[in-house]
């Protein structure tokens, strides 16, 4: 009932987060191929969208959910909002992304949260761009870094996870040192990147280091008019934490067929190819051709920092409250 199909046309409803995007021709191709129209319900950021799905599991908002990442995966699985489904191309996805052994959540894309640096800023001052997390506590990088609050931002949470993955039990000491070195915390990515970071186009920000994405440098190029030869910013490989995004068929969906068709489509080349420039993430399907800006300007770290979804699910709350105590109070 909730998908509200109109007069014979079959419509599958996709519940997702605000950042979801797909280009129109791609969506039309899906409809042409399968006969399913897609209705998209964007419902806040990734966390809020998932929580809405959980709240409404008795009468699901839609048929498919896209946008659960590895930091939220266990919550989705524990709440059992997805029905099991093995996508047609599932086997071709590298094992590192297939984090759900119960085969309910299907990986679609991934991205890396990394510290970004404003190249010009460092060049102007003849200061080397830092390479590792540890270097960020060095006194020459005092008052240069801006990060997001993990309590309100998924980017911020990913970065905290990065520090846990890197330093294990010592992560809070690391943060104490970051704090002593003048780290600035803001609430969301928008303020951090557009407001505080000096490298963003047109920004009045003053800090040359920001927690953002590995795909931010190509985006800077892509959304400039005209596009420059070199990226004004760069992502620091060794600071990257990997986020994998999943989709799943909602349990109790009105149109499970459509839902399955849509997830299959998400793993098709057509859709996967579209991902980099619409959502600035990297497709999970190997051998998907990347657009030139990505090939030229994006880093895909070979050995990113990771944590198991179970670990994140278990400890997230504690991390946030401890982090808040150490960094904000």
């Amino acid at each position, binding site marked *: *009932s*909730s998908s*509200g199909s109109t007069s014979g046309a079959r419509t599958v*409803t996709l519940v997702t987060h*605000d*950042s979801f*995007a*797909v*280009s129109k021709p791609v969506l039309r191709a899906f409809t042409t191929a399968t006969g399913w129209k897609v*209705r*998209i*319900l*964007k*419902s*806040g*950021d990734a*966390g*809020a969208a998932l*929580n*809405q799905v*959980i*709240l*409404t599991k*008795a*009468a699901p*908002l839609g048929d498919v959910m896209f946008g659960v990442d590895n930091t939220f995966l266990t*919550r989705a699985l524990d709440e059992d909002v997805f029905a099991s489904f093995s996508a047609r191309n599932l086997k071709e996805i590298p094992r590192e992304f297939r984090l759900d052994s119960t085969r309910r959540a299907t990986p679609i894309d991934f991205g890396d949260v990394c510290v970004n640096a404003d190249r010009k800023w460092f060049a102007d001052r003849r200061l080397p761009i830092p390479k590792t997390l540890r270097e960020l506590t060095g006194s020459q990088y005092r008052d240069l870094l801006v990060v997001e*609050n993990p*309590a*309100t931002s998924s980017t911020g949470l990913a970065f905290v996870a990065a520090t846990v993955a890197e330093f294990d039990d010592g992560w809070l000491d690391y943060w104490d040192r970051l704090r002593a070195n003048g780290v600035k*915390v*803001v*609430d*969301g*990515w*928008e*303020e951090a*990147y*557009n*407001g505080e970071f000096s490298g*963003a*186009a*047109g920004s*009045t920000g003053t800090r040359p280091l920001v927690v*953002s994405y590995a795909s*931010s440098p190509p*985006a*800077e190029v*892509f*959304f*400039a*008019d005209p596009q420059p030869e070199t990226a004004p910013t760069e992502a620091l490989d060794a600071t990257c934490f990997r986020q994998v995004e999943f989709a799943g068929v909602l349990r109790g969906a009105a149109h499970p067929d459509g839902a399955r068709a849509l997830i299959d489509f998400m793993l098709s080349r057509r859709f996967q190819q579209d991902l980099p*420039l*619409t*959502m*600035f993430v990297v497709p999970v399907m190997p051998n998907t051709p990347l657009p030139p800006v990505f090939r030229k300007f994006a880093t895909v770290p070979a050995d990113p920092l990771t944590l198991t979804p179970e670990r994140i699910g278990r400890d997230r*709350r504690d991390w946030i409250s401890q982090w808040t105590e150490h960094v*904000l109070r």
Partner: protein
Amino acid sequence: MTARVPIWWGRALLLGVPLAFVTVFFIWPVGAILGRGFVVRGGVDLSPVGEVLTNAALRRVVGFTIWQAALSTVATLAVALPATAVLSRYRFRGRALLVAVLTMPFVLPTVVVATAFRALGVHGSIGAIVIAHTFFNVAVVVRIVGAAWRGLDSREEDAARVLGAGPVRTFVSVTLPALRPALAAAASIVFLFCFTSFGVILVLGGPRFATLETEIYRQTAQLLDLRTAAALSVVQLGAVVIALGVAGVMTGRNRGSHRLPTPGKIPARIGSRARVAAALAPAILLVATPLLSLVRSSLAHGGYGYSHLGTTPFGAAGSPADALATSLRIAAVATILAVGLGLALATAVTRPGRRNRVVRLAQSVVVLPLGVSAVTVGFGFLIVFDAPPLNLRTSWWIIPIAHALVALPFVVRGTVPILRAIDPRQREAAAILGARPWQVWREIDLRLIGRATAVAAGFAFAISLGEFGATLFIVRPETTTAPVAIFRFLSRPGATNVDQAMALSVILMGITGVVALIGERSANTRSASTARAG
């Protein structure tokens, strides 16, 4: 002493429809979500409230929330009242334009304003929070209090002056008591806005500052800890109810001295020009500076944002122009809903007759949506409107309905003080002359609250254009509103996205200004032509 309203059901209808609206679209969803938090295995468990109140950190949050809201309210009144005084008493060129400019902040998304304030170096402190709240809320005071002030009967002030009261004492002892209901209405709205403010606290205050609203958001949207969220919501509601109670006491009893607003009786003469300017300066400075800085940054890159209004960025659901069109459509519907329901309720509440508890309660209930977190309402919608006939979760209508809920208090609180102040003899005279109750309403009440209604409608429109918090949860790609579009542009890196966001913000603000200007002008000419032609 009062005219009987013979058709009791007419009044019941006036009262019942708005109340039903608020009950269905507010009380029910909020009740449902609170129920999820409190109902444990069929029993009600209120212990989380106790836990919240005994938790030192959360107590600090509650204290800070109230404190910053109170401080912001006082600051807003301090900046806005002098401006209101001269805007409602003096006649000078550019008056209407000024009122329009002061109204503009109302629609701006917090993210956008934050950029402007940050560029001006205002951020990261309680001061920044207060300044931003004042920036947003000056219009509330200027317009609600201004509408009442203009209709004030000046004869009592003359009497006070002749009896030896100087201008200040005249204001304190005669004008202020007469304005008290409107002041209380405006102050309580400002307080609630600041109390539940979200973006300003997060973006301008910074992560150090947590309020009930941000906590509820975090507990609900991020952690899905409905138990704690419900407890916090109850605490929030409790504080809101207390604040409304205080406002109710401040309102005092009726006075029958409201007349047709006669805008700007006193032409600003040479001597008083300086005084007018001095009174307006703080408000103008506070509001215009960030606005101008926004306009300036929107012109970056040769006005890319303006020349690409019709361009749908790669991967986005629509162009800025599409979002604007959607916003205007939604705002129109929300305004009609809010004004219609609000006037019905205001009329029912102020009809002469025995004032019973239902009536008094009704007035307070409509204000509650201002005092409850958008995320609570948004999540509540999801769990109650999931079955026909109210399967509204994914309907277009849910957005104007949500906006109307937020705008309703403006209409009710903006018109009730004025309706109350209408001399009952005016209605009696009309009845004696053969006017039926609805004719009395049309010929007397409506004529006298014309300006207040225009102001309230303007607010409703602006609120709908600018509403963001609740919209984000219920918006669909085909119903993307302008603030949501701005937010989405800004959540992607790259210059063209920022340019389009800024341009859209400035256009949104311009539309609001124009709407306010038209309202102001038409209210003026209406009263002027009434004076001339009847």
